[in-house]
């Protein structure tokens, strides 16, 4: 395992952003971490990079517990894990040239010196499909898609073992998004890094993740191989999420069974007792209001869900109840 997260908790004051989450990412695996705003998905990414201090739980990178490493002890490990951010506008320093931005990790980790850095930068720019002359440009001279390529180049230049990508294509137009997604796929195949891909967009996850974990209010409610999750979502929340994302085909879209969830996402300051989803779940019954369902995998096929109604021979159908 490249990454193992065990029972991670991160509270910001009274806000229980992540509230007991475990996941693993294998060598060369892409895990799509899906959730809506406030689900805590970005906080998980920040904890993995130690950009924020976990409240409890353990994070292991390549078998080494990094949960409470000091900044100094963490520094050499930063070669192995890098982040790509959503906003290619605010995540690149406007005062540096593209060459400086992409080359900076090499100098910081003393992997290259002033003389050898430009060759490495050129090679990396070529890998992400940017022309050499881009190295002397500034971020404001680039389009959104080009900036996101720069973000990828900077994250990948040290050949990290794990990349945490937080909504890396969400700010891009569809046509630009397509080329960046193709690029991520190619780079991942060539370089073999593992990836924690954080997004709200199910279609993006379906396109590039090997496995999917769905978050709701700080917890994982379901996880499994991508094809399985999309073909047979088990948790009523996953079912609702899939049914709510409109498909770009009016005939199919207008004929789909939709699960309309009532109410709003409850506040992570005071999550509901029992199952956290019970306030919006069309199938909720008494036990859901008092007993928190564990993430369990009754069929033992690597597709666990946190729902009382999921059993070895039965999967709930949220669309059947209106």
């Amino acid at each position, binding site marked *: 395992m490249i990454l193992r997260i065990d029972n991670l908790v991160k509270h910001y004051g009274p806000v229980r952003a992540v509230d007991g989450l475990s996941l693993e990412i294998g060598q060369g695996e892409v895990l799509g971490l899906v959730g809506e705003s406030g689900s805590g998905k970005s906080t998980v990414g920040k904890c993995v990079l130690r950009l924020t201090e976990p409240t409890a739980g353990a994070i292991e990178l390549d078998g080494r517990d990094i949960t409470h490493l000091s900044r100094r002890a963490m520094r050499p490990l930063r070669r192995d894990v890098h982040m790509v951010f959503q906003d290619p506008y605010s995540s690149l320093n406007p005062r540096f040239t593209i060459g400086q931005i992409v080359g900076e990790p090499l100098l910081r980790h003393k992997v290259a010196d002033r003389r050898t850095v430009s060759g490495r930068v050129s090679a990396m720019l070529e890998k992400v499909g940017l022309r050499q002359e881009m190295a002397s440009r500034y971020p404001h001279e680039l389009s959104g898609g080009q900036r996101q390529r720069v973000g990828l180049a900077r994250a990948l230049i040290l050949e990290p073992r794990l990349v945490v990508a937080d909504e890396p294509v969400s700010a891009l*137009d569809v046509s630009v998004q397509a080329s960046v997604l193709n690029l991520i796929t190619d780079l991942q195949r060539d370089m073999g890094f593992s990836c924690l891909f954080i997004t*709200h967009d199910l279609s993006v996850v*379906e396109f590039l993740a090997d496995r999917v974990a769905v978050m709701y209010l700080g917890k994982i409610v379901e996880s499994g191989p991508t094809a399985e999750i999309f073909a047979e979502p088990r948790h009523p929340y996953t079912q609702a999420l899939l049914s709510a994302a409109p498909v770009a085909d*009016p005939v199919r879209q*207008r004929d789909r069974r939709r699960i309309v969830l009532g109410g709003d996402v409850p506040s992570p300051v005071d999550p509901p007792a029992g199952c956290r989803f019970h306030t919006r779940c069309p199938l909720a019954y008494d036990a859901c209001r008092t007993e928190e369902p564990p993430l369990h995998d009754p069929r033992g096929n690597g597709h666990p869900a946190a729902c009382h109604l999921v059993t070895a021979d039965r999967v709930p159908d949220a669309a059947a109840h209106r």
Partner: protein
Amino acid sequence: MSLLEISDLTVDFDTEDGLVQAVRDISLTLDEGEILALCGESGCGKSVTAMSVPRLLPPDTTRLSGSVKLDGRELTTLPESQMRQVRGKEVSVVFQEPMTSLNPSFTVGYQISEVLRRHEGLSRQAAGRRAVELLELVGIPAPQRRMKEYPHQLSGGMRQRVMIAIAVACSPRVLIADEPTTALDVTIQAGVLDVFRDLRDRLGTAIILITHDLGVVADIADRAVVMYAGRAVEQAPVTELFANPRHPYTLGLMNALPSAAVNGRLAEIPGMVPSPLSDPDECAFQARCPRAQADCRLSRPSLERHAPEHLAACFHPGGKS
């Protein structure tokens, strides 16, 4: 005659870099009870086109020509005093960001009632009663209680519903919704789209929906106009558009969606949108177009009818004839 008729609309903006040609020769119509989607990527001119109707473009730097007629009445030349009556009462707008469009210092009830008192001349009590009805109409639970709450107490989806309630308070004939669900989660988006559908069905409101999301277009629109670089490149009823896209750009957009991946790859649209500072006499899409031929660089294709209601601006359109 259609409820709204836009003819040969052209909009330029004076900027430090020169004249930005935001919209070029757009003509479109909107019928009562119709949901028309204006779609395309950032900078294609979809918002500028729609905001020309209530004249919500910066007056000092906007140069506009062409005609916008509501019920036969020309809006582009209407004096500002009369235009103020049109805004809100006949044409109203819902924006993407409900947090920045609501005033944080006033209760939800006050903000809806104020519109009713100002535009409809209702008394405070009558406006309050109507405001509760409007909150009910847009699907807000416990409307009596919500009336007394401030915007920060509401979730994003609820705020957007309040914005819609304000926008439809005076029963406008045309509602312009600019990316109204883009900032919302999908499970919330579905409910807000239902509100639009419901308004159309119950009140006959005509809706212009500005969106970049083809899934939303497929879900709710009757007809769609696809824009590229300031121009309409294709226009058709939605089922026809998705079943039989004619313009290579429309097809490119559909194929670029992650859900349209073939063998683990997405179809890219190479190149970039041309600069809005120049407008050469050629097809604006030709440099990126897989079907482009010599004639595409010699003159600009105009929007031609390919089927009864299906228009496309392309010399070499795809699709079944």
